[in-house]
């Protein structure tokens, strides 16, 4: 994926790759299409043992990354997820672990207990996300009011929550007045209703989740950042705004996944053009096909570039991280699906059949378009950033 990886990083990526090679063949994925969760029991715990849940959590809180740049490390797994169209709640699990990891040490027993279960893979999380006031990135309508004992009462609906139907716990990022609060809500909490949805991906799952005056005890509310006594990690909080950090993490992981899926579709198609003959010539000898592959290769390289740039900025706590993360979404969210659709076109009819592998990757990049803000919403956010900078 990236020039300049350390040997340890390469080893981590290879371990994940081999694991997915063995367990996530296209045939496996087709078989999982009918599975309610999209993966077999034990899957997520095995992944946790490989290190899919810890990189964004400080060592003191039970986590730990290879290189010290936690998001860069984790994105190597995300890239392999995309390259295999692998199942599992990689994004919400890590957003939740990250959020609890910065709070658990000061947040008391309940948060620490959940974090431990998330890190071990014993539990999975879904993330219900409202947009901060004044922003519009397709977030859910979730509002929190004060509850007894420092707790919260949360109302609202998340129409499309990743891994929501099978999650053991929800990380809820809700509006509270003019700010945001973060809390952990048991899936079994009274007033929480969820409904399994069908979706465009073969193994990724979504649910509609409704919260009807769900009471959250005080010890499940994340302390405000200023109160947090967490150790500074490599992903230190530049903006001081947890909701923004969560969003950027989700965007970076999602784009890394999409880039992986783009790479898989591209490689498959390049091989196809060499082996498939038409009119006595390989497809790869037709200039129109060559030029299209050249464009795709350029989109792929550019997608890598902006995704890695955003990850590095976020790991380094740089102030341009949000801008780069939005640019990554705007670019990859547009060119990712276009690239894979071009791959379909070059394959011809076979490329839209269920038995061919291409749609596995088409589904993954397609799923990545509207989630966490559409490319159009991120373009608008970028324009807002531009306006603010130029005006100031």
């Amino acid at each position, binding site marked *: 994926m990236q020039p300049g990886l350390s040997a340890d990083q390469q080893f981590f990526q290879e371990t994940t790759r081999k694991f997915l090679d063995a367990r996530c063949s296209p045939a496996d994925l087709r078989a999982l299409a009918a599975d309610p969760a999209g993966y077999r029991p034990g899957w997520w715990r095995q992944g946790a043992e490989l290190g899919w849940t810890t990189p964004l959590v400080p060592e003191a809180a039970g986590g730990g990354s290879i290189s010290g740049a936690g998001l860069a490390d984790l994105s190597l797994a995300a890239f392999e997820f995309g390259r295999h169209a692998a199942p599992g709640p990689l994004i919400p699990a890590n957003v939740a672990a990250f959020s609890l990891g910065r709070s658990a040490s000061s947040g008391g027993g309940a948060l620490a207990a959940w974090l431990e279960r998330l890190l071990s893979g014993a539990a999975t999380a879904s993330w219900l996300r409202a947009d901060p006031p004044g922003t519009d990135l*397709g977030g859910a309508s979730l509002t929190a009011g004060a509850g007894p004992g420092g707790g919260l009462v949360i109302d609202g609906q998340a129409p499309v929550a990743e891994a929501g139907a099978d999650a053991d716990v929800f990380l809820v990022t809700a509006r509270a007045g003019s700010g945001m609060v973060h809390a952990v809500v048991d899936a079994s909490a009274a007033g929480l209703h969820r409904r399994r949805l069908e979706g465009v991906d073969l193994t990724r799952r979504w649910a509609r989740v409704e919260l009807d005056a769900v009471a959250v005890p005080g010890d499940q509310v994340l302390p405000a950042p200023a109160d947090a006594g967490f150790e500074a990690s490599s992903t230190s909080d530049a903006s001081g705004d947890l909701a923004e950090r969560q969003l950027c993490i989700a965007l970076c992981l999602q784009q890394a996944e999409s880039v992986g899926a783009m790479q898989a579709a591209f490689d498959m198609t390049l091989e196809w053009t060499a082996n498939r*003959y038409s009119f006595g010539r390989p497809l790869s000898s037709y200039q129109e096909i060559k030029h299209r592959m050249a464009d795709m290769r350029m989109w792929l390289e550019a997608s890598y570039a902006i995704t890695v740039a955003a990850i590095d900025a976020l790991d380094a706590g740089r102030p341009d991280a949000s801008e780069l993360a939005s640019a990554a979404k705007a670019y990859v969210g547009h060119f990712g699906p276009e690239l894979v659709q071009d791959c379909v076109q070059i394959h011809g009819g076979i490329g839209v*059949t269920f038995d061919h592998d291409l749609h596995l990757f088409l589904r993954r990049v397609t799923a990545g378009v509207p989630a966490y803000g559409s490319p159009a919403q991120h373009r608008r956010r970028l324009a807002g950033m531009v306006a603010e900078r130029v005006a100031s």
Partner: protein
Amino acid sequence: MSEDVESFRRRARAWIRANLDPAPQGEAGIGRARSDERELARVARAREIQRALFDAGLAGICFPVEYGGQGLSLEHLGAFNQEVAGYDCAADLQIPTFTPCAAVILEFGTEEQKRAHLPAILRGEEMWMQFLSEPSGGSDVAGALTTAVRDGDEWVLNGSKIWTTGAWWADWGLCLARTNWDAPKHRGLTVFMLRIHQPGVEVHRIEMLNGNREFCQEFITDVRIPDSDRVGDIDQGWTVGTRWMFHERTAMGGGSPYVVRPAGSGSAGLVGSGDSLWPLVVAEGRSQDPTALDLVGEAHTLALVGSALTPRIGASMRSGALNDQASALARLYSGTRSVRYATIAYELSGQSGLAWDPEAGDPDPGVGYLMRQAACIGGGTTEMARNVISERVLGMPRETSHDRDTPFRDVPRGPAAG
């Protein structure tokens, strides 16, 4: 002395109103999974409708009287198309039976073949499919590997065909096969009539990524065909094939004399207009969002342009201003337009296109987006259309091919020829 157009129109109108149901809603095409039961019921109803049309003297309006048709003009067909608008005459199932299959039989069949099959087709008793594409072939239909070997008065066929719509319920296939491997590609082909449901023809239904199973692949093993079921001369199958594909293009372009096409339907209609997107915009609460309006306006523009383009190309072809290869312009337009429409619909649908309640919402935008390229593949890829436009309409040089003057057995076929 044939019936004049207006009295034909009145007769057709009266019969249509008395006998046909209103047209079903919704676009044809590679839709989502339709149950087999529903599909078979639809086919059965199409056969009934066709039989009733035949009995009423309204089947095969431009087919010759001696083969069961009405022997009337394109104007009569046009009148019928206008009168039948809004009614269910199973028009979508007339292709490929009436054209290109029946059209090819009419043009190249022996007298016996015509008498045996054309009336049966017009009565709805025989439904035909095209055994044309092959798994190895892609856009290169003349590169057929399915082989027919002469054995006395019979031919023995072996090979595989693919992308045959509805072969699992249809009756006959028009089959292009190679009869000479020592001649160059286009000079060793022959066309046969093949009864689909017989030993040696195994029909496999292809599942599309959206669950649709209307397309089939057939595996043909040692199937014997009498020489009397050969269409056209031996090794001259490409002469037949060229007209076959002309009839197919003409049908797609909307100018065929052999099929009914209710007025306002098909690519000439406003399928995929801004109107069809508006409910989505309202559902997403974006009816005041200028970026959503921009997308609706774009889709609507493309629909209006499409509905102006198809008849213009037809008129230009009839007037000779454009040659008959110019229908590739309409094919290219409609493919690229459909792709853009699917993209816009997915964008407008937001997260509801990504995931939906299986018992409520309409999954079309998301699944439609996944199937988007089908519009640029099926019925000849847009790449082939661009080749045809550049070479046959603009007169630019032909692509270098390594198969034009080589014995076909020596043509490179590559590892993926399957």
